[in-house]
């Protein structure tokens, strides 16, 4: 857990961050909005004292209320992984600027996120489906896409814990926001 990293990030990006910088175990978490993605990622990548040159992962998350895009970055200047959460994307039309201007390797990761969630990455030159067939119409990892076998239509719906599905309207915001830095 790198406390100095927290101070550095708050000093550099203070106005842009939505909420505080959280730290837990060996991860530091930063939340920004979709409009700041380009500036923040470019600063994290280019500035020598930040130097987050390794993009470890690009994930999409559907919290039930909103969509998020999560970047995991690594830098040689700190001992923590940095997690950048782009939050507040609407579930109907989620759009985020693409990270391919910095990392060409993000192209397929964004394609996968588009395929699974429907999040449109503006600036990605190749945003088409990667896993599902090209004429597929749904986005499988969204919370309103139920597996065909889901218990929502079986007599035992909700009785066994395994058969409870994550219904978007019931997913509450609070659990995901809690979890304070230790």
């Amino acid at each position, binding site marked *: 857990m790198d406390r100095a990293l927290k101070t550095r990030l708050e000093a550099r990006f203070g106005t842009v961050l939505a909420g505080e910088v959280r730290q837990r175990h060996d991860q530091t978490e930063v939340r920004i909005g979709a409009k700041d993605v380009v500036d923040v990622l470019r600063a994290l990548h280019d500035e020598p004292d930040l130097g987050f040159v390794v993009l470890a992962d690009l994930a999409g998350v559907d919290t039930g209320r909103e969509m998020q895009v999560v970047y995991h970055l690594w830098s040689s200047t700190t001992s923590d992984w940095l997690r950048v959460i782009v939050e507040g994307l609407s579930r109907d*039309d989620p759009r985020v600027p693409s990270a391919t201007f910095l990392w060409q390797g993000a192209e397929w990761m964004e394609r996968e996120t588009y395929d699974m969630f429907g999040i449109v990455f503006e600036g990605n030159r190749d945003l088409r489906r990667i896993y599902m067939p090209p004429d597929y119409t749904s986005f*499988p990892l969204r919370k309103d896409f*139920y597996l065909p076998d889901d218990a929502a239509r079986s007599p035992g719906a909700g009785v066994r814990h395994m058969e409870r599905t994550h219904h978007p309207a019931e997913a509450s915001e609070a659990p995901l926001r809690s979890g304070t830095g230790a």
Partner: protein
Amino acid sequence: MAIAKPGRDSSALTVRGGTAVAEPIVVRNDLWSPADPAAYGGGRPTEITHLAELEQSEALRRDDARWSGLLEVIPTKADYVLDLLRANSLWPLLSGLACCAIEMMSFATSKNDIDRFGAFPFRASPRQADVLIVAGTLTTKMAGPLVRLWEEMPEPKWCVAMGDCTCSGGRYKRSYSTVEGIDRVIPVDVYVPGCPPRPEGLIFAMMKLQQLVKDRRGHWPERAIGPTVPQDV
């Protein structure tokens, strides 16, 4: 050419009928039909559900792969020899899809050797292959190409469903993109359960297939296409 960009029409992103359960993806059973409409039981599920019934029936004793016309006078010993030849040189098609493919490769190499069964050449082209060993999960995207491979194989051909995923969908039975068992799309002769089955298991399956070929129980006209399990299971 105009580019159809995603996201221009934002309504395309919403999943309509949000609370309804998605319809399962059903891969049709009519992806492939044999050239002879009477073959494979006419495409109906088999009425003979137990091997014992098959042995009682006269279907076993009927000779379907007959020589025609003048060649009928050749005694049936030749058929027996032909089957022996086929059984001892079953050339598989390299159709390893997923993890079971590694066990299939292990089954083909030094320690568990199928070269002693005559089956070492894994043909790359379906036109030259006898057996389609489907090793690995079949997804809906791959179902089309797999059926096409099956179509391209010339008869006589057999199919071995290796691994749980090909027998019944396995651990991915509840997934939105897997086909629950390849017997939904192609006729299967031998099922090898396991995740992944040990190479010894696959050797047993090949020996069983050889036995099938020699006993002429692998009559292709008798095999069924389609699940032999009721639809709602």
